[in-house]
């Protein structure tokens, strides 16, 4: 029998436990909460891209890439300020985003996402924890779910602080349906569950520096507009 308590805190933790950083995002409302999320764009020059609330059942936030032939990317991140449109914003190893509060050796992210574009027409799509939010997959310190044009299946990617990476391919293909992703970062391993099934674990090339959250999609060159919906995202430090 579940206990009913007045406070949300006590639903999740006893008061004897000091909870870590935590947020819950429902992506419901008229605009993206830009106090929480910053928006970044990559590659190309037109203005078709956007991160807007979807006017559709279960729509959440709709991430839309541009349409020109240069290949387009869009991402949202809790670590980035503003809605940078042009020029593109790219964080390098020496230029980290300004707000990173998540612990690479003890944290979890859950997000519910669908990618509305054939995997073969994607440069990249997915989400997770990262030190350098971007849409092109050139992350340092990333642990999360990735879909790429080279494989129909979702992948579990981890990269260390220098960008060296390890990929584990799951058994879940991109069917353009919503999937629920859960990614756990522990002291010496990472794991990814999709729709409640453990799909991948990894102990190699793990990050050690603080991270932020990223959710993104990038179309492959010349494939036109791509979209992805995200209707829930929650992350916390253990």
């Amino acid at each position: 029998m579940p206990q009913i308590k007045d406070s949300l805190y006590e639903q999740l933790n006893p008061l004897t436990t000091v909870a870590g950083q935590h947020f819950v995002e429902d992506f419901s409302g008229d605009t993206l909460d830009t106090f929480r999320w910053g928006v970044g764009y990559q590659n190309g020059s037109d203005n078709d891209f956007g991160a807007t609330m979807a006017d559709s059942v279960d729509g959440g936030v709709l991430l839309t890439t541009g349409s020109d032939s240069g290949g387009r990317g869009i991402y949202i991140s809790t670590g980035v300020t503003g809605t940078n449109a042009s020029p593109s914003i790219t964080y390098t190893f020496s230029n980290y985003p300004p707000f990173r509060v998540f612990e690479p050796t003890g944290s979890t992210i859950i997000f519910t996402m669908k990618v509305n574009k054939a995997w073969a027409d994607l440069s990249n799509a997915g989400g997770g924890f990262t030190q350098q939010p971007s849409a092109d997959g050139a992350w340092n310190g990333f642990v999360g779910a990735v879909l790429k044009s080279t494989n129909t299946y979702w992948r579990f990617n981890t990269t260390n602080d220098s960008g060296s990476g390890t990929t584990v391919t799951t058994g879940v293909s991109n069917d353009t349906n919503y999937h629920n992703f859960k990614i756990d970062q522990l002291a010496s391993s990472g794991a990814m569950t999709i729709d409640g099934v453990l799909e991948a674990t990894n102990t190699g090339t793990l990050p050690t520096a603080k991270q932020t959250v990223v959710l993104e999609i990038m179309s492959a060159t010349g494939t036109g507009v791509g979209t992805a919906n995200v209707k829930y995202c929650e992350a916390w430090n253990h």
Partner: protein
Amino acid sequence: MIEYFTGDSLDSKRWGIVTATSPTFTATMADEIDGGLKIYSPSSGAHSGCVAFNATTTGGNQSPMDVRPFSHTGAVCIFVAKFDTAGNYSNGDGSYIGFAQDADQSAGGGNTLMGGVKGNEVTFTMQTTNNAGSQTRHWQTPPTADTNWHVWRLEAKPTTATMGIDGVLERTSTETLPEAKMGINMNANSDSTNNATTYVRYIEAYNT
């Protein structure tokens, strides 16, 4: 009300920063693991301030603050915070978080129930203030005011006010209890020689 303090900036539709003219006081998101909101009161300049349910202003203390939805006879505030060394805060004030009528930079004003650190006191403090502005601060017993993260729970009832830390009831008062509706106030006031930083990464409040 639930606030996670996770993102790129303080939600200015909920919170305002109240300071004096040309403030050196700041309240920004921390770029630190588990950092939340960083409330910084340097040793020099107009260094006291607060974050409250009030429009951002450099017009000094706002009495009352713009929005006060919480009941003085039945409300709870839970927050996760860490305070600086007590000696870094102003001797007469300090840094307090909780219910307050006013967006007051030094936890003054009327009708408060707040928890925090009083400058130079070695134990954590609970403060209550009634409608006339009479104030009681309870700091005479442990727990020690360390600089670690703790979870705090304040509760306003018709005839008592309580403060718990990490699940243990630490203070109960029947003196100078608040007598009118309140909002949320998080303030810091450093002393004249040391910088003081208070962090808050979660705050929740509700009427009972």
